[in-house]
């Protein structure tokens, strides 16, 4: 039951993109085609799960016992940057087809604030443990995927629409994101 609440909370109620504003850069940047947004979502799922596992263990067993809690930000960002590099190298070796699919998105993920954001948010879960933190990371990336893919499908339609000159480009995308976020507001109070 607890896990169901985490899942619904992370995907619908507190969607990381549309209500927490994490990962807006890839959300606006790589969402012009559905196929690229699927690739990006896959890469985020992969990195976010591994990063949260590692940072959670590091925080619990190294930083807190040694009283180095204030170094959290520096440690986490370094771990994430190193992890992304490592995942890239390993994927290239172990699974070339997966690397083909996700490769171009991996370097972008270091500066994706959703990864660092979820790693930090996972520390604050109610009576949290490692399993919950990892499950939270998976749910959050599912929420990211949902928002990104829905947004990309809408944008594919927008290409054919007749839009006023001043609204083209950034403004219309932001408005669409706003309406999407409004729709997700309907889930408020579900959990």
């Amino acid at each position, binding site marked *: 039951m607890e896990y169901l609440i985490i899942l619904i909370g992370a995907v619908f109620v507190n969607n990381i993109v549309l209500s927490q504003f994490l990962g807006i850069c890839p959300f606006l940047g790589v969402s012009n085609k559905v196929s690229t947004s699927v690739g990006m979502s896959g890469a985020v799922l992969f990195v976010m799960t591994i990063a949260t596992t590692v940072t959670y263990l590091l925080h619990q067993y190294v930083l807190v016992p040694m009283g180095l809690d204030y170094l959290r930000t520096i440690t986490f960002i370094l771990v994430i940057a190193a992890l992304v590099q490592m995942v890239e190298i390993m994927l290239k070796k172990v699974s070339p087809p997966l690397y083909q699919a996700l490769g171009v998105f991996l370097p972008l993920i270091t500066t994706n604030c959703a990864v660092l*954001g979820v790693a930090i948010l996972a520390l604050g879960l109610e009576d949290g443990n490692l399993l919950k933190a990892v499950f939270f990371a998976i749910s959050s990336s599912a929420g990211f995927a949902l928002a990104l893919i829905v947004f990309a499908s809408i944008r594919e339609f927008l290409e054919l629409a007749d839009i006023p000159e001043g609204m083209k480009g950034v403004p219309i995308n932001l408005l669409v994101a706003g309406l999407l976020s409004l729709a997700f507001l309907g889930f408020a109070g579900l959990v």
Partner: protein
Amino acid sequence: MAETLDQKQNFLKGIIKENPVFVMLLGMCPTLGVTSSAFNGLGMGVATLFVLLMSNIVVSLIKSQVPSKVRIPAFIVIIASFVTVVEMVLEAYIPFLYEQLGIFIPLIVVNCLILGRAEAFASKNNLTSSVVDALGMGMGFVIALTALGATREILGNGSIFEFRFVSEDANTFILFILPPGAFIALAYLAIAFNRLTRKLA
């Protein structure tokens, strides 16, 4: 003379022609996430300005010592150190703002504006230009965040910097305080900004 004129251009480009928020779309997460009031926007803007200025100074000073292969991790460590400083100072002296900004303070590290300026400008230019560039870009960011925060606070709460100008029970657009309002307000501000700069040019 040419030198001073250059610096003025360098400063102004961050505010108008290459405004980080309205034109370049950098650092969108804090832009949308914390601007539910003018004060929060200003606070976030100033915190980012500080980190940007310090990281530009350090990066520009050590640029010849850092091998180019490890420059990105080196920049990230520099930025993360200053973010930690900001985090601790805010927690100690302005706990109210620390609570309000929450997770977005550690997330200054991944603000693409800061890493972007370190990589694209400070690692190639001298100290003075880097300081001016950081001040210009930082001010552009502060102005954009404060404007967005003020717009949302006026429409959503009928106040500006906590100063109310409508009665307590007046109807306001609560929507603009909520998450969707951030996207919608920024969309219209971006249109207004583009029109304004086109007229100036």
